[in-house]
């Protein structure tokens, strides 16, 4: 149960979240996968704080949470605005920025 285990778990969760972002089409699910990635990173920070026996890692994890919360707020507001206009939550439908 050394910090390396935590970091390994964090890596696995991160990769799962990354694949999820690429594979899912529903905007909300993609958002949730991004949250998963952020959580994984938080876990890594906490593990490293434990490793170095100082609290800086936890402070950073704290700030990450704050920022993630702000990001979710704005992102979901955007999503709502797009949904009202297009009545679809699929990211594939927003494909006008193409050749």
């Amino acid at each position, binding site marked *: 149960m050394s910090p390396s285990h935590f970091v390994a778990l964090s890596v696995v969760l991160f990769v799962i979240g990354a694949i999820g972002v690429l594979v899912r089409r529903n905007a909300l699910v993609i958002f949730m996968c991004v949250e998963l990635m952020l959580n994984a990173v938080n876990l890594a920070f906490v593990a490293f704080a434990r490793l170095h026996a100082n609290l800086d890692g936890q402070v950073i994890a704290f700030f990450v949470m704050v920022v993630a919360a702000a990001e979710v707020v704005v992102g*979901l507001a955007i999503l709502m605005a797009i949904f009202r206009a297009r009545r679809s939550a699929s990211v594939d439908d927003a494909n006008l920025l193409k050749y």
Partner: protein
Amino acid sequence: MTAVHLLAAGQATSAGASVTFWVLAVLSVTAALGMVLAPRAVYCAVLLAVVMLSLAVLYAVAGAPFLAFVQIIVYTGAVLMLFLFVLMIVGVSAPDSMRETIAGQRLAAGVAGIALLVLLSLIVGHAAIGPAPPAVAGFSVGNVRGLATLIFTKYVFPFEVTAALLITAALGAMVLAHRERTSPKPTQRDLSQQRVAGSHPSPLPGPGVYARHNAVDFPALLPDGRPSELSVSPIIVARESELGTGPAAALPPGGGAANGAAGEQDTAGSEPEEARP
């Protein structure tokens, strides 16, 4: 619980900590996989909640009790609930299509993901991450106090900036979600005029008004004994006809309160009209 206590607990009962860790690790990985693969968005949200909760426990095990609680309260309790609200607005019922529209996306994503996994494992394995050292000064002062000291001395500037960020985010959300009225807000007079000029001037009957039973899902009876589709919410009608059980199942689907007054006024067995859009 102080950090020391936890740490001591962690070190003294490392077996317990290990078990905790492994159980939670398996749980969180399974939940994460499930989240990525589930077709319905609501299931994804719930599975994410599971992941976040198990992570909270892991934080606690790793000597960050404050963060553990913040994780539960803020992340799972607020952020995830926000997700659920938006899910409700957007539409919770329909499952997503799992057919991939972009050629090669899944393959490429899989390959890249495995590559990243391998690389990061190499890094992690290569790095010298030794066992946790014994508890030191920062941890022993008390987790909350230690964190507070750090936040308000060393990291005060990022703290202030993050505060500004939060304010900006809140403002931004308000602006983005705001819907500008294109027409003036209808006053009570406007609404009553619309009602009188429309097909059904009188207020719609509440559920169960004419009924013997007092339940939301129980349709009211018309004078001739037929159930009134107007009296039950169409959502409940749809649900119950799907399920096949319940008092509203007898009602024709798609009917209900949205029906016009014609169905109500015509007492001699008129056909129900199509739902008003």
